[in-house]
C-alpha cells in the first residue's frame, strides 16, 4: 500500500487530499461538495448537470467535449448522492498520465484547471445562468429522475426508503423533487451556485503522478476569493422501530421486488460500525452469506437476496426479486435468518469468510488512482481512515460483537412491488 494521503486545509472546510500512488496510466481528481439534504436539493441536482456541460471558456456541450477529446479523451463525470442527511455533488475527471502524451502535452494540468473552471467559472448570460441551457438541463434532470422507474430494483429501493424515512429529511421524495425542479429559473441556479460555494464542505481529492505543490497553490489562489460560511450537517438516527409499516404497490412487472428496511440501532456513523459492517455481511453480503446460501441456494426462491448497511443513516436494507406468490415464504426466511444471526447460530467459518472478503476489497484501494479517489473522497469533513486502519477495525470484530449488533436490528418497513394482476 502507498503512503497515507496528506490532508491539507486549503480554506475553511476546504480540504485537499494528496494521494500519491505508484506510477500508472491515469491521473484522477475529484471535487466533492456537501450540503444539508433538503437545502436547495432541486437546484443542486440541476446545477450538477449544468456545470458539467459548459463553462465560461467552453460555453456549450459541443465545445467542452471537443476540449476533452483533445485532452486524450479525459473522462468527466458528475453525480449527486445522499450521504446520510447530507447531499453531495461530485465532479470527477480521469485523464491520461502526461508521460503517455504523444506530443509532450501537460494533460493533467489542463484537466485540473478545466475541473476547477467547471465549478468556479460557469457559463453565464447577462450575469445569470443561461436561459436555454437551464431549460435543457431541467428537461434532462426530469427525464433522468423519471427514468429511474425503468430500473425496478432501484425504484423499489427508493420507494422503500421514501416510506421508511417519510418523517426524516432522508425520505425526500422524488416526486416532490421533480415538482421543484420543474419550477426552477436561471436565477435560482445562480443563487444556489453562490450558496454552494459559500456553504458547502468541499474536498478535492487528487491521485496519480501529480505536481501536488503546484496544485495546492493553484487551489489556494482560486478559492481565496470566495467568502466562506460553511454550514453544519446533521443526520437523524432512529435507533429502533416499534411498528412495522407495510406498503404494497403495483406496476406492469414480471418479477416482484421485496425490500425490507431495518433500523440498525446505530446512533451515529461511528457507533459500533465495524461490528455492524461484519454482521450485515455475514447476514447478506457475499455468496457465503446466510441470505444467499439459504434463500437463494437452498430454497431457490430468487436470483438475488442481499443485505446492505447504510452507515451514514444507520439503516440496513434487504433486497430480493421473487415470484409474488413467494412473498410470505421469502419474508419469513429472511427474518428467520436474522434470528439465526441474533442467536449466534452462524459458523465461525462464515464470520471469517466475511472478514476476509471485506478486508480483501479494501487492500486494493491504492492500486489505481480511480479507486483511491473513490475511497478517499468519502472523507469530506471527517478524519481520514486509511484502508489499513479500516481492515484492522474489521478484523477486531468478535462473534459476540456480531450477535450484539444483530440483536439491535429492528424491522421498520416491508415494501412490496408486484404486478397489477397479482395485487
Amino acid at each position: 500500500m502507498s503512503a497515507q494521503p496528506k490532508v491539507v486545509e486549503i480554506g475553511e472546510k476546504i480540504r485537499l487530499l494528496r494521494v500519491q500512488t505508484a506510477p500508472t496510466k491515469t491521473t484522477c481528481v475529484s471535487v466533492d461538495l456537501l450540503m444539508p439534504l433538503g437545502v436547495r436539493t432541486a437546484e443542486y441536482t440541476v446545477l450538477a448537470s449544468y456545470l458539467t456541460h459548459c463553462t465560461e471558456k467552453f460555453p456549450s456541450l459541443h465545445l467542452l467535449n471537443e476540449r476533452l477529446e483533445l485532452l486524450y479523451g479525459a473522462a468527466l463525470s458528475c453525480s449527486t448522492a445522499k450521504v446520510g442527511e447530507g447531499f453531495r455533488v461530485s465532479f470527477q475527471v480521469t485523464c491520461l498520465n502526461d508521460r503517455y502524451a504523444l506530443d509532450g502535452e501537460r494533460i493533467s494540468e489542463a484537466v485540473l484547471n478545466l475541473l476547477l473552471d467547471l465549478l468556479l467559472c460557469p457559463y453565464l448570460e447577462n450575469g445569470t445562468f443561461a436561459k436555454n441551457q437551464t431549460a435543457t438541463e431541467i428537461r434532462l434532470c426530469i427525464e433522468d429522475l423519471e427514468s429511474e422507474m425503468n430500473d425496478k430494483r432501484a425504484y423499489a429501493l427508493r420507494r422503500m426508503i421514501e416510506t421508511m424515512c417519510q418523517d426524516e429529511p432522508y425520505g425526500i421524495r422524488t416526486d416532490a423533487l421533480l415538482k421543484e425542479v420543474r419550477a426552477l429559473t436561471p436565477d435560482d441556479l445562480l443563487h444556489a451556485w453562490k450558496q454552494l460555494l459559500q456553504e458547502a464542505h468541499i474536498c478535492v481529492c487528487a491521485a496519480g503522478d501529480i505536481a501536488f505543490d503546484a496544485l495546492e497553490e493553484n487551489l489556494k489562489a482560486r478559492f481565496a476569493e470566495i467568502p466562506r460560511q460553511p454550514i453544519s450537517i446533521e443526520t437523524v438516527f432512529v435507533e429502533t422501530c416499534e411498528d412495522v409499516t407495510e406498503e404494497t404497490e403495483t406496476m406492469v412487472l414480471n418479477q416482484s421486488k421485496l425490500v425490507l428496511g431495518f433500523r440498525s440501532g446505530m446512533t451515529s456513523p461511528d457507533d459500533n460500525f465495524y461490528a455492524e459492517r461484519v454482521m450485515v455481511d455475514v447476514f447478506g453480503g457475499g455468496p457465503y452469506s446466510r441470505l444467499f446460501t439459504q434463500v437463494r441456494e437452498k430454497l431457490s426462491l430468487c436470483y438475488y437476496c442481499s443485505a446492505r448497511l447504510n452507515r451514514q443513516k444507520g439503516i440496513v436494507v434487504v433486497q430480493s426479486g421473487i415470484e409474488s406468490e413467494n412473498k410470505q415464504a421469502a419474508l419469513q426466511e429472511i427474518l428467520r435468518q436474522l434470528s439465526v444471526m441474533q442467536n449466534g447460530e452462524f459458523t465461525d467459518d462464515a464470520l471469517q469468510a466475511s472478514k476476509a472478503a471485506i478486508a480483501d476489497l479494501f487492500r486494493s484501494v491504492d492500486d489505481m488512482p480511480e479507486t483511491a479517489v473513490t475511497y478517499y473522497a468519502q472523507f469530506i469533513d471527517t478524519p481520514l481512515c486509511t484502508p489499513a486502519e479500516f481492515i484492522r477495525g474489521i478484523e477486531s470484530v468478535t462473534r459476540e460483537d456480531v450477535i450484539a449488533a444483530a440483536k439491535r436490528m429492528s424491522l421498520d418497513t416491508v415494501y412490496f412491488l408486484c404486478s397489477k394482476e397479482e395485487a
Partner: protein
Amino acid sequence: MAETTIRKVESARLQEFYYDIDHRSGLKILVYPKENYASAYAMFGTHYGSIDTDFRLAGEKAYTSVPEGIAHFLEHKLFESEDLDAFERYAKTGANANAYTSFDKTCYLFSCTDNFTDSLEILLDFVTHPYFTEATVQKEQGIIGQEIQMCRDEAGWESLFLLLRAMYHNCPVRIDIAGTVASIAEITADLLYKCYNTFYNLSNMVLCVAGNVSPEQVLEVADRILKPAAPVEIERKFHEEPREVKTAYDEETLAVAAPIFSLGFKEAVETPERALKEVIISNLLLDAICGKTTSFYNELLDAGLINTSFDWEYFYGYGYAATIFTGETPDARAVEKKLVERIRALQESGISEQEFDRIRKKHYGRTVMQFNDIDAIANTMVSSYFRKESVFDDAEILQSLTLDEVNARLRAAIDTDCRSLTVIKGE
C-alpha cells in the same frame, strides 16, 4: 507430452508486457504482471456462449442442437461439486469470485489481494471438474427462472433483444443469453455433460491473469491441477442469414417512463468474424456520426429528441455485425429519420481530417488508460485471444489508421436501407 513454452510480449509504445504461455496441458495461459498492485485478477474462459446452439466435433456427422440458454445454465451449475461448492471454497481465501456468460464466451473469475495461489487452485479445479445430477439441475431452474424474469423487466435489455429479433432471421444472437423458462426446462444433466465435454476442452479455453502475480506462481498451480487433454476441433453451425432484416419495425410494452428506441443497421457479413481494424474503425465512426462533439448530437439534444441516455455501439460477434443506437425519446421515428439522414450526409461528405485526428486522439487516450485496470486487462486478453489477437494491437492499429480507410468503411459498412427500429413503450 509437450513441454510448456513461455514467450514475453512487449509493447514499447505502452511500456507494458505480458507472458504468453503454451501450457503442456494444451491450455493457453496469459500472465500480465503489474508492479505495485496489491490485487490480482484471474479469468478462466471458454470460447462458448449463448450463440453456440448447434455444433459438432470433427468426425461427427450430425450437428447436436441444444436448448437455448444452456451455456449460461452450465455456468451456474459448474460452481457445484459433490463436496463443497466453489463459493464455499472461495469463502476461505477471501477472494471475490463470479462468472458470466455472453453471446460467445463463458468466463469464471476472481480477484484477490491475498491467498492468490489457493484461489487459482479453486478456479482451475472446479472449472475442470463438472458435477451435474438431475436433482441439482432441477434446483437451478428456479433460480435461473427468476434471473430470466428479472431481465424481462429490464427495459434496456429487452430493447436490445427486441431489436436483435427484428434484425435477424436465423442467427442465434437473436435468442436471450439465459434462454426462456420453457427452454431451460428441457435441460438435463446429460445435455450439460455433452456441452461441457465439447466446449470445456482446454484447447478451446484460455486462462488470463493480471496484477500482483508472476508466471511462476500461475504455472506452479497449473502444473499441479491441469491434466493434458487431446485437443478437439469444434465446428459451429453457420446459420444462413438473409441480407435483409426480418422486420423493419417492432414494439413492446413495459413499465417505462418514456419510450426507449433501438435502431440497428445490419451489416453484410461475408466472413463470420470481423477484423480488429474494422472494429476499431467502426467505433471511431460512431463518435464521428453522433458523438457529443458533433453538432448533430447537440441538435437532437436541443430539439428534445434525445437525452443523456442516448448511446451507441458497434455490436459484433461470430456471424453478425451491426451499428446500434439506443435511448429514450418522445419520437422514435423522428430520431430514426435524423440518424439515417446524418449517416447518408456523412457518407457523401466524408469525415474531415481534423475530426479524425481529434477522435483518434480520444480513442488512443482511452485505450492506454485501460491498461491501468487489471479487470479490463484480463477481460480484454480473453476476448483478444479468442479473436487470435494481442491486447496491444489496438494502440498500434489506431496509430496506423488513415482517413481514407475510415471513410471507405463508413461508406461500405453501413447500409442505411438495411435497418430495424424497435420501441419499448410505456403502459
